[in-house]
């Protein structure tokens, strides 16, 4: 995948570029807003990672400008700013996701994976399936190997999110943000408890465990 990194902190940029390259991506970098915008408009990238505060042209303006030019490349904002509403501003300017520095690299990887996946949406699905686990989005029912699974509404949303990102690492923060719409980390890791409950419902009694914990990163649902 081709990724554009626009970051003025060269140390952070080097790290980001190296990490992404190690993860198998092709990366271009820019250290200011002008260069970043020029690159974004001239080459097709699968995703762009843009710092909010950039010399020459602010990150918000870069994205706004890109959107004005009809460029709908998925964009992840990186920000070292403090404001509570900062995320909202970033998303309003046309960003697709928002990550506050300092971040864990796995978090960043998981998020750009999700962003790149989002770019190629197949036709609207009414059914999601991973292995023999099936989720009917219309009737809001789940079955595993034909057996009905009784899910609470939130559990359904949690499973739906995991299944939409099947084969991808999904972090705890991503789950909190998308399933609970919370943008803070609870002191105690409540997500783990929710996951283990869900796991008990979908994997208990089956040989193949679909819902896996990825150590140090998050969770993944996959049929292997």
């Amino acid at each position, binding site marked *: 995948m081709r990724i554009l990194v626009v970051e003025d*902190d060269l*140390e*952070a940029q080097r*790290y*980001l570029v*190296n*990490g992404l390259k*190690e993860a198998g991506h092709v990366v271009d970098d820019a250290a200011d807003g002008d260069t970043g915008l020029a690159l974004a408009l001239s080459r097709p990238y699968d995703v762009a990672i843009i710092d909010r*505060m950039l010399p020459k042209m602010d990150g918000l303006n870069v994205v706004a400008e890109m959107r004005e030019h009809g460029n709908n490349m998925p964009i992840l904002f990186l920000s*070292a*700013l*403090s*404001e*509570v*509403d900062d995320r*909202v501003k970033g998303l309003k300017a046309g960003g697709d996701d928002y990550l*506050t*520095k*300092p*971040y*864990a*690299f796995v978090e960043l990887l998981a998020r750009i994976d999700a962003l790149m996946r989002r770019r190629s949406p197949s036709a609207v699905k009414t059914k999601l399936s991973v292995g023999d686990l099936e989720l009917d989005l219309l009737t809001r029912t789940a079955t595993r190997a034909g057996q009905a699974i009784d899910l609470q509404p*939130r559990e359904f949303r949690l499973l739906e999110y995991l299944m939409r990102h099947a084969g991808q690492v999904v972090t705890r923060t991503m789950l909190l943000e998308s399933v*609970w719409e*919370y*943008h*803070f*980390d*609870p*002191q*105690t890791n*409540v997500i783990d*408890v*929710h996951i283990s*409950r869900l796991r008990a419902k979908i994997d208990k009694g089956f040989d193949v465990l679909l819902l896996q914990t990825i150590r140090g990163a998050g969770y993944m649902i996959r049929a292997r």
Partner: protein
Amino acid sequence: MRGSVFRHWSPGLLRTQAFRIVLIYVFVFAVSATVLVGFTYWNTERSLDAQTDQIIEAEVTGLREQYQRLGLIALSDAINGRVAQHGSGLYLLVSPTGSVLAGNLTELPSSAKVTGRFVEFDYQRNQQGQDVTRTARGQAFFLAGGFVLLVARDVSERHLTRQLFTTTLPWSVGLMLLFGLVGGALLSRNMLTRLDAINRTSADIIAGDFSRRVPVTNAHDEFDALAENLNRMLERIERLMKGMRNVADSVAHDLRTPLNRLRNRLEEAQRRLGPQDPYMGDLEAAIAETDRLIATFNDLLLIAEADAGSARGSKARIELTTVVEDVTELYAPLAEEKNISLAAEPAGVVTIEGNRSLISQALANLVDNAIKYTPAGGQVGIVVAETPLGVDLTVADTGPGIPEEERERVLERFVRLESSRNSPGTGLGLSLVAAVARMHDARLSLGDNKPGLKATISFPRLPQRKNRSELREPPARP
């Protein structure tokens, strides 16, 4: 603006300082004007009386001389002569036996029987074939030989004037009061409009819009001077607030950048080492410590931001009940795992003005704490209750609670109880809740749940929508 014109003719008008001042002035003015006019009238009447009296005295002196020099016949001739002149003079000469000898009065009025003193009396006069009662002022004199001479002047005109005066004076005073009140109301309304503009602006600024300014008119009056001064002050406050925000942003940026590099490098080293390396554990611990540092920093920043003013997080009308349900649902499995019953008491629709994310975070902190400190088998309850003052959001647990003497202290910034020093979390949970409460004009209080802790966030009563919209209109800016 049209609506507001009518709004100013409300009972509220009577409570304005301007109207009260005008009322006092009108009253004082009415009293002093009445006294002044009354005194002037009284003085004029007195001097007119004195003038009449002098004329009468002069006449009497003349008539007396006539009588002394030429006798009774000459006196009656002189009197009849004067009567024939058809002046305003009234005369009467009475013999010692009481019979009228000369003059244009028919009898001696009873009040005039006492001599040596000016008196006023009524008499009848034939006017155009009709007898009319008129008023006169005069004095009776004894002449040698027992004759009585009465000389008087008709003062009916003056009496009429006096009557007119005494009947018109109350009306005038009434009208004066009425005009004063109307003028006062107009003046107060004008002042109220100007003050309202200032109040509206202040309300907007309190609500967080620091860009608002008090409108300045072209009148160049004291209100404009006040408005200009207020605007200068606001300019300064806005500059300070912006400065503070810049500092917060700079601090955030300048600390996050090196923290980011630190974490990046640790992660990079972790990637290079590979899972079997003996230093892996140290690196993981270092990363965990960095994350704790970041979490503490984020909490501190959020507390500082919440305290910096409500301008930071945007507020909206939110359903407190939904917030409670969501947080309860988030923590339910954790509580169940610890064998603690977590329940939110059902409440109706309770709306408050606030930032959903921050209030959720505050509530999550309280619930998190409650679950953390409540032993297995205990209970954690969340209650939303409407009180006369507003809305109370309470989280009560059956844990060890906080000793009464420590409760105030734990709400101070960054204080962590000795007993909780080694438990996970940044220890800023309650400080953060308190800061979020302050940001919402709410108050966090800790109480005894007997046993356990009862933490309550008391939100103020939601301003009525109507008032709110009144505060907001007109959207005029300077």
